């Protein structure tokens, strides 16, 4: 089986073939072969032995951010890594319409603008609250609020689009 794995932002060509002994796998990473002895203890928990070195690889079932836990490491894989998304947002595209996204799961407690309101860069737009912490979401740029997708009391997921500013 051939795979393109995107791990921590790096893309890898991986070939994985079951070995003759159950639990043994022949793996090529960008052409370099390794042999792994793998045992699935329970769903998502893999005991991996490579050259005598033992690893506990835990597959995180977080739907928003596929990651592996490896010892203390939390390793993002596949394409959609929120941290890279946050990076994008930081040097955010100041031109054209931009979206305002929830930075955490929570409940909308205040909407500070109305559809059509003209907002300055960094002006507060929506306040969400979770676990006793309030978070005021500010407009990433100067412009007009063309969409407001939430109202006070709504429950929002992390990364959900709350408003669009043109």
């Amino acid at each position, binding site marked *: 089986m051939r795979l393109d794995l995107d*791990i921590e932002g790096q893309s890898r060509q991986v070939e994985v073939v079951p070995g003759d002994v159950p639990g043994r796998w022949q*793996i090529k990473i960008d052409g370099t072969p390794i042999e792994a002895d793998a045992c699935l203890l329970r769903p998502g928990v893999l005991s991996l032995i490579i050259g005598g070195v033992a690893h506990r*690889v835990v*597959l995180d*079932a*977080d739907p928003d951010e596929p990651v*592996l836990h490896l010892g203390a490491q939390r390793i993002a894989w596949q394409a959609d890594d929120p941290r890279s998304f946050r990076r994008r947002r930081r040097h955010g595209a100041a031109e054209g319409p931009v979206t305002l996204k929830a930075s955490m799961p929570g409940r909308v407690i205040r909407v500070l603008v109305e559809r059509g309101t003209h907002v300055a860069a960094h002006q507060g737009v929506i306040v969400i609250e979770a676990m006793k912490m309030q978070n005021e979401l500010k407009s990433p740029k100067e412009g007009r609020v063309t969409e407001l997708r939430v109202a006070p009391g709504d*429950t929002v997921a992390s990364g959900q689009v709350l408003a669009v500013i043109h």
Partner: protein
Amino acid sequence: MLRKVLIANRGEIALRIIRACRELGLATVAVFSDADRAALHVLAADEAWRLGPAAASESYLRGDLILEIARRSGADAIHPGYGFLSENAGFAEACERSGVKFIGPPASAMRALGSKTRARQAADRAGMPRTPGSVTGLASLDEALATAAKIGYPVMLKAAAGGGGKGMRAVAQPADLASAFAAAQSEAERAFGSGEVYLEKLIERPRHIEIQVLADEHGHCVYLGERECSVQRRHQKVIEEAPSAVVGEDLRRRMGEAAVRLALAAGYTNAGTVEFLVDEEQNFYFLEMNTRLQVEHPVTELVTGLDLVHLQIRIAQGERLPFVQSDVVLRGHAIECRVYAEDPDNQFMPSPGRITRLLQPGGPGIREDCGIYEGWVVPMDYDPMLSKLIAFAPTRDLAIDRMLRALDEYVIGGIRTNLNLFRRILRDEDFRDARIDTGYLDRLLQSADGGSAPTAGAARAAIAGAAIFEALQARDGNSAGTNASYSSAPSSAWKAAARNEALHTRR
């Protein structure tokens, strides 16, 4: 003798109290909001009654509903835990009125020590050192300026009804006082419904050290040593220890005896905590008294060998303290990490949601007080503490290394947590050398985070692991266990499923 205890709380502390009651042969009544129907304290109690909707104001803060449930279930006592109604004198009185024993101090003592200005007056009466400054609310800016001039800058403005850093302002010079005074007043007004603000001398680089006291209803009071709580972020405790690395026999005795004097003077009973600031010259200053069980009480239990909740209940039953001060001996060292559902990589944003994977640590010297399990959806409605992970060992160094071992065993999937923050702190040289004060953690977080890049071997293992998970998935489907009964990464189809499930879980 009590027979049935209603636990007016949730989460780990509700479960911890239920366990103590069961050990003492007392029946237990749990209460829950709609967000907590699947919580472990509901599963563990003998009885469980619904309070109301998720919002605390409609459930865990509804003393009237709680007393009604106590009546219907025949509970003869209420343990308030910490937070919620635990320091509400009015609720304590309502309990007494309805003939239900409130497991905590009398309302009078809560009132005498509840406001920080009143508590400072009580400290003076008890002859206990406190920070220089006012012992009543500031009537005007002029009074503030006069007081500040008398004690000298820098000074601290604080809300009398305050807590958690709200309504607090440090002022370095007279010119800044006016604006800070106004800001503190309005912030206090908003946060606590009282704009009363007072002023005290600012202590530079203080340690936060607190004394646990225990008083029975027959006039006997003892102190159970101190807790070191200087590792804080935004005035929220993150790590607590017992004993403190800087407190010797003599300082412990002086702080302890002062704390006992204050408690006795205020007619205090049951468990309480007197908080102090300690400066670099080891002078200690009274800060406030918490008239309830503290989150961090386990570290005291581990070094004293006592069970504070057992003792709270026995005191509430009118028993005398089963020991005297000289019987209290500290042994070994205990550290507690407060595991929060928050994202250190994203300004510590709260991270509620479903725990999709859970591997918990255990073994020698490890205690975990928590109410979480694999599949539990951490509600967005309450504070983000998931678990209290506590390590005990003969020495501080061993306790730190034991905690690091436990942290390496710990995996929490589906939500973000601060587990890695503890790894960083516990490896930090200043922490290991106990060079800590209340500003320590904020300084650490300013500095760049060192080595946490995966080793070559780890990276290779991660790639191999991901590939094998994919291969198993392709070969066996989910039965291969690449996802649990909760939907799983990484294909988008699975994601959709997961989202749906996530919605279903919130009735």
